[in-house]
Every structure is written in structure tokens, then in C-alpha cells.
């Protein structure tokens, strides 16, 4: 996927990590480790979308050095766990495609709001493209963000009455 060097945790080269453990205490530890690993991985590689069907292509779920793969249903159950904390959401009903939010949508929203307010750009119309690929945002974490995720984050702002969404088709927004 990417050339980004990942600092794999010790679990990644521990074969039992790729089998869902039946012992409840062990399993909770294992799932927690997976959750943090997935989020770290996605953050490092700027992955916003994971397709479970193509999971074996991700080095995340497929450690070729010890020849272990994470099963699809296990991936889905871990992603469902992530969903509970607002760090992931399935895009389709079959739960095959998942958006990963290594920052929750609320965190993204407040990040954007801070960016806007720090530049005094309230009440100005900003295009989504500017937010995603603009020169000003190059330093920000949401640079290069996927549009679907960005819109979802902005909708959170909308819900908080801090933003007026003008002309979705024109892909512009205004923050108060």
C-alpha cells in the first residue's frame, strides 16, 4: 500500500495474535491491541477506507514473515469494536467496507474548527478542496483527507450549530 515504515508492536510477530482468543481476559487484551494497531497503521499510512475483502493485501492483517493472516470475520468483529468507540463505521450493509477514523469525527470537527478560527476565517466560504488540498492546510493533519470523511466531520459541526453548509454540490462550506 504505502512505503511508510510502521513501528510494528511485538504482538504483530506473535502468532497467537492472529487467532481470536477464547479466554475472555486474553481476548480483551488482544482486541485492544488490535484496535490501537489498526488506528496507528491507518494514521501512519493515511488510510481512510478498509475493504475487508481485500484485507490480505494490507500488511496490517497479513504478516508474511510468520505466515499468519487475520480471518475476515475476526477483522469485522474488531472493526465493530472500533465502531463502538466511534473510530470506525461500515459504509455498506454487508460490512465489507469500513471507514476508519483514527481521530473520531468529533475530534476532526474540532480540529477543523480550530483551524478556521485560528485563521479568522469564520463566516467565510471555504471549499472542501481548500480544506483537503489547500496550501494553508498542508501542515494540518486533515490535509489529504478523504472527502466522504470530511463531509461527515463537517456534518458534526453542522449539528453543533457552528457551520452552515452551503451548496453541497459546489463543495463549499462556511463556518460561523
Amino acid at each position, binding site marked *: 500500500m504505502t512505503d511508510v515504515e510502521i513501528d510494528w508492536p511485538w*504482538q504483530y510477530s506473535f502468532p497467537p495474535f492472529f*487467532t481470536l482468543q477464547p479466554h475472555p481476559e486474553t481476548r480483551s487484551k488482544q482486541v485492544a491491541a488490535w484496535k490501537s494497531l489498526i488506528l496507528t497503521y491507518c494514521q501512519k499510512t493515511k488510510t481512510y477506507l478498509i475493504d475487508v475483502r481485500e484485507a490480505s493485501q494490507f500488511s496490517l492483517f497479513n504478516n508474511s514473515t510468520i505466515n499468519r493472516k487475520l480471518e475476515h470475520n475476526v477483522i469485522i468483529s474488531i472493526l465493530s469494536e472500533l465502531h463502538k468507540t466511534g473510530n470506525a463505521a461500515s459504509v455498506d450493509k454487508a460490512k465489507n467496507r469500513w471507514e476508519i477514523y483514527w481521530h473520531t469525527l468529533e475530534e476532526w470537527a474540532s480540529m477543523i474548527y480550530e483551524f478556521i478560527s485560528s485563521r479568522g476565517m469564520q463566516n467565510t466560504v471555504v471549499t472542501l478542496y481548500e480544506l483537503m488540498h489547500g496550501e494553508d492546510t498542508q501542515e494540518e493533519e486533515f490535509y489529504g483527507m478523504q472527502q466522504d470523511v470530511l463531509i461527515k466531520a463537517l456534518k458534526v459541526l453542522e449539528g453543533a450549530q457552528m457551520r452552515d453548509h452551503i451548496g453541497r454540490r459546489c463543495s463549499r462550506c462556511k463556518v460561523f
Partner: protein
Amino acid sequence: MNRIKYTNPILLESESTVVVENNVRLYDGHQKTSFEGGELIITTHRILWGRPGAIARGQTCLALHLDLVVLVEEESSSAFSFSRSKKVLLHLSETTEESDGPQFTSYYNFIKLSFREGYSNNVIGVLNDLLQKRLWEPPSPEVSPQQHLPTIKLRTGIIGIERSLQEKQKATDESITVAFQDLDKLMSMAKEMVKLSRTISTKIKEKQGDITEDETVRFKSYLMSLGIDDPVTRDSYKSDNHYYRELAKQISDFLLSHVEEMGGMMALTDVFCRVNRARSLELLSPEDILNSCRIMESLGLPLKLYQFTSGVKVLQLSTMDNEIVAESTALLIEDNGSLSAEELSQRLGISITLAKERLLTTEKYGKCCRDDSIEGLRFYPNLFLTKEE
């Protein structure tokens, strides 16, 4: 016709007359012959034909040995003939013998018997019966297969099939009885053997010193491998409970050292095999063993029955505890890095089922974790819980 011979109408040894018919004409194939209006006698061995009264007077007559007859059938008379005459076809086998009969050669492989006035007896039935019995053969039970084959061919139709089935049944029946006779003998012999060994062992006890120490020891070891000296049997107890209690004591006495050897645990199937092997004669049913194992714990015996969550039942030392098992197994896993059930079974000298149960118990206590891959199920030290932060 060339198979028919001139002969004396004197009956052979063990031959007897079966059917007598009058006014019979012989045909060679489809051709009429001059032998007509004669007397036909079917015996157990031959078919005899003579001029009226000739046979009774002991004059020469014609004879056809039944050995040569392959098939008997009635010639269906045409629809337009209303005569009472009936014809019987006799298909004959090839012969190489020089004929001394009325005709040297014949184009046909069958002759016909024409009964001008019909026949009073069921000639065809009688002939078929005789052909099957083959009374002319010496009465030895061993019939060579070549001789046997034609008779099998004769059995056509449903009756034939039924008969062959019956014969097969008879044969299996016989072989079964023979087999069990052997077994009975073995059992009776075994009882004697055990008795004998017992008397010898008591004699040895009495006469210790007469034989060298070495021999005594060796003989005793033979006796030991023969089994338990005085097995507890159901007959000697009035109530089942009492019986089970005594049985439990004996089993635990006998197995204690073995269980210790096997690492403190023995599958119930192994228990069953070992106990019955040792008893050799008064065998126990699985139910009896299970029942007596159940009450071991309440009797305070050094062994107890334990059932794993998977349903596998084992007999284990009552001092043994799941936690201790888990602890020791975890240590083993740590020493080896990781273990599969097979490896553990080899290491401890226990069965794979038991090894797997041990690993699962250890996992249940959170002392190890599993790795389920295409290479099989392996267990690793539980680093998730121990190596955290």
C-alpha cells in the same frame, strides 16, 4: 444314440428302480428308431429300455447312463396334435468312448423318449431329481468343482437361486459353529491355565529356597503379566453398590502406579483396556468401570474421576488440581516457546487427547494462548497478559 449301450438288466451296486413306464419309443435326435413299444425303467443310475418282458427275463437291453444326461426337457407338442403321446428330450454330453451299442455314430446330441400313452409318473421331475442327487457317484462329500459345475447350471429359475442361497447359509452356519467351538475350547483352557499358574505360585511360596532367587523372580513376573490374582466379580456381592465399592478399590490399587507413571492422568478408555487386560477372564463392562470410578472420590481413594468440559473423562490422582496442571503446562510451554497437543503428548508420554485437554485447561486459566493456523493448533505463553506495558 451312440451313447446308448447294450447291457444286462441287472441292477448295479446301490442302484434301485425308480420309475417304470410302458410303450416307449426311442428317437435318435428327431429320427425315429426301430426301438418302439418297449419298457422303460428309470433307475437311480441309468435309463434302461427293453422289449416288453425282456428286462424281467433278464435278456439284453439298452442302457443310458444318467451321467451322460445334461438336461431334461419336455418337447412341447404342436397345437394341432391331440394325441396323448408325450416326448421327453434328453440332452447328452459329448463322449469319446467307442460305442458298443446299437449305433456307432450320431449327428445329434440328444435323444427323445416318446411315451405313446403318456406317462403315469412325473418322469421329468424324477429325472431332474436324480440328476441333481447324482447317486451313481461314490458317496464321498468332496465333489471336485468341475464335477460340481454342471449341477449348478442345472438349477435354473427361482428354485435354483433359492437353493444356492440356502446352501451358502448352511456353509456360513457351519463355519461359525466351527469358529466358536475353538473359542469355547480356548476359554475352558484359559481357566485351567490360570488355575495352574495359581497352584504353581502357591507352591513357589511354600518351597522358597528350593529354586534360585532369579528363577522365582522371573516366574513371578510372568504370573504378574497374567493378571490380577483374585478379580472382584459381581457374583460374589449381593448389591451393586457393594460391588462397585470393592471394584473401585481394586481398580485404584491396580492403577495407582500406572497413573502416576502417566503423569497423573489416564483416559477412561485406557483404564478400561488396562483393567480388562489385567483381569483377562472376568471382564468388566464399561458401565461397571464408570460406575465404580464415579464413587472413587467419595471413598477417599487416591484416584478420582474427572470430566473435562469437552466431555472427555479421565481418572486422575486426587491430589492433582486443574490449577497445578495449568501451572506446570504453562511452564512447559514457556520452556519450549510453543507447543502443540502432539508435542506435549510426546513430551509427557500421554495420549494426544489428554495433552489437548491439558492445554485447553491451561488456556481456560489464562496461562497460554492459542494460534489456530493451517499448520494446526499451537499454544504459546500468554504474552497478552504477562508482557503488557
